[in-house]
């Protein structure tokens, strides 16, 4: 590694340490830190919640990082696919009741149906709209995916109105110790996200198609020479990305409220994650997601008016990391 490269890695480390130190400093200064055991437990709970949330972030962040990594396309509609996933889950959750059966479908079980749908949707978007513009100027896919996103928002709004929905799934507290509680739904979501992420990770590492995807991400020309059908890899990649986003949507639906316009915040989070982790870097994205989620929670917990500044954490991360080391935490420098 070059001298300058090493300097940048250190600088990035310092930046992240500073980002994490800031809420503590502000908290101490503004009297939001109490030096007792109870507060320490609260702090642990907050970090734990961040970790759990980070798991879900990671899952749809990985989806975007796959798409960006393989095709260098900025998919601005990623959050909208998350939103769509939440709606699909909600519809299936309620479907038996509307049919007069009087029971609900388990939201986790619905993934068996929603993920293939999302995969097919992503596949179709890539096939019809994006395959022809991969490798061209970045503006084209940017506009196309934004167009897809805005059409999706309004289509969903037209069908389901702008009402908020939520699925009251496993709403109780999970006792970790006497004083530390987290939501059961959060634990379940995290476990689910971890399982799915791990599955995709193993797929990429071990399966022939997964290896082909990684090869394409590294160098499409070489991949093509090696007999990989790059166009098909693109389709699978976008499908996979969409499926991951939609799985994220299912997990969002059992934790939070959602409406057609909530997608954009997930897009931003996913952007922050891929920038933090590095283009196309799977483990980097997971690390970035957890860092981001914990940081957000710390800001909200200790900074006065912190919940208004949560978004700031994501944007500071995006701009700061891009300026210091555009390839992110674990990414490799592009040539």
């Amino acid at each position, binding site marked *: 590694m070059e001298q300058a490269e090493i300097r940048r890695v250190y600088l990035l480390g310092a930046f992240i340490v500073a980002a994490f130190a800031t809420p503590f400093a502000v908290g101490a200064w503004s009297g939001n830190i109490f030096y007792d055991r109870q507060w320490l437990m609260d702090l642990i709970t907050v970090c734990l919640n961040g970790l759990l949330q980070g798991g879900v972030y990671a899952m749809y962040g990985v989806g975007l990082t796959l798409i960006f990594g393989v095709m260098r396309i900025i998919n601005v509609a990623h959050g909208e696919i998350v939103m769509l996933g939440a709606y699909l889950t909600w519809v299936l959750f309620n479907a038996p009741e509307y049919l007069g059966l009087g029971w609900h479908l388990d939201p986790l079980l619905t993934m068996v149906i929603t993920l293939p749908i999302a995969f097919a949707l992503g596949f179709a978007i890539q096939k019809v709209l994006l395959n022809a513009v991969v490798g061209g100027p970045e503006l084209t896919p940017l*506009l196309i995916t934004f167009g897809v996103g805005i059409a999706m928002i309004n289509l969903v709004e037209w069908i389901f109105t702008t009402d908020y929905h939520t699925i009251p799934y496993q709403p109780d507290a999970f006792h970790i110790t006497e004083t530390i509680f987290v939501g059961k739904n959060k634990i379940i979501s995290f476990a689910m996200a971890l399982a799915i992420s791990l599955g995709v990770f193993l797929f990429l590492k071990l399966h022939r198609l997964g290896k082909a995807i990684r090869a394409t991400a590294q160098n499409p020309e070489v991949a093509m020479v090696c007999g990989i059908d790059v166009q098909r890899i693109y389709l699978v990649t976008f499908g996979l990305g969409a499926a991951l986003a939609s799985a994220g949507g299912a997990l969002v639906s059992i934790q939070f409220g959602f409406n057609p316009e909530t997608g954009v915040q997930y897009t931003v989070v996913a952007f922050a994650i891929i920038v933090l982790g590095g283009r196309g870097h799977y483990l980097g994205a997971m690390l970035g997601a957890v860092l981001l989620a914990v940081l957000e929670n710390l800001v909200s917990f200790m900074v006065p008016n912190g919940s*208004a*500044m949560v978004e700031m954490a994501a944007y500071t991360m995006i*701009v700061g990391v891009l300026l210091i080391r555009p390839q992110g935490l674990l990414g490799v420098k592009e040539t």
Partner: protein
Amino acid sequence: MTSREHLRYLAYLGAFLVFLAVLPFQIGVYYRSFVMFTMMWVVLALSWNIISGYTGYISFGHVVFYGVGSYASAILVADHGWPWIPTLLVGAVVGLAVAILIGYPVLRLKGPYFAIAMLGAAEGTRVLVTVWDSLTHGGLGINLPNVENSMETYFAMLALMVVTILVSYWVGHSRFGIRLNAIREDELAAEALGVNTTLYKMAAFSLSAVFPAIAGGIQANKTLYINPDGEFLLLITITMTLMTMFGGKGTVIGPIVGAILLYLFQEVVWVKFPFFHLIMFGAFLILVARFMPRGIVGLFIARGWARKGMVH
């Protein structure tokens, strides 16, 4: 191009100007603001075109300049009792300052990373404006003193549009513009062929920031109410992008035609269909991006009605 051709275009512009100068006296308040907003979109599209159309750096957060311009103006008018016209100049200076602050680091990034960083910068500024309550009144927004100023804002916007068109015309027909284009085509080659790319990008970025800042100020004084979510809306960036793409990016006439047609269409036809009109907007965005990379001007070129390139 010969100077006679320059003169001919100037004559067209003059005739157009006379028409626009007489127009507001013939029409009511609503249509006056309608034309005013059309001109605003022309300004925004042309400005976006200067950085993104010519240099190819996709400013995916260009609304930030519009936002800070409108906030600078509104704060001075509402909280400090300034008359509104001088606040536009302050807005321009603030826009310029923000452009330098953002541009200096961010313009070193390339391709998608620049776009993402601009998005982050714009959205981050929105949050900052929201949180900085003591200055901006946060989510409350700012109410400006209630006056009927459709005539004044019309002429302010007209003047701004004329300046923007003239500057764009100069950019589009000078070696400055060609060199910006060279950066878009091949930054490394441009640098090796004598273009101080850092300086040129910075100049183009600053230039493209000033006009939206002023336009934002005028808009704030016409609308008389602004809030962070409205002034820093991502959709505004997308709309300027779409207008420029639709007309033809990297040309002078393209963004003008794109802005006028699209705004007209949007306001006259699409608003009639709630829900559908944004679905149509999305579909239109896809179609333009996918099938009209050179926009309307490109179609003209393909049919041989227009010459290729920007200088002749």
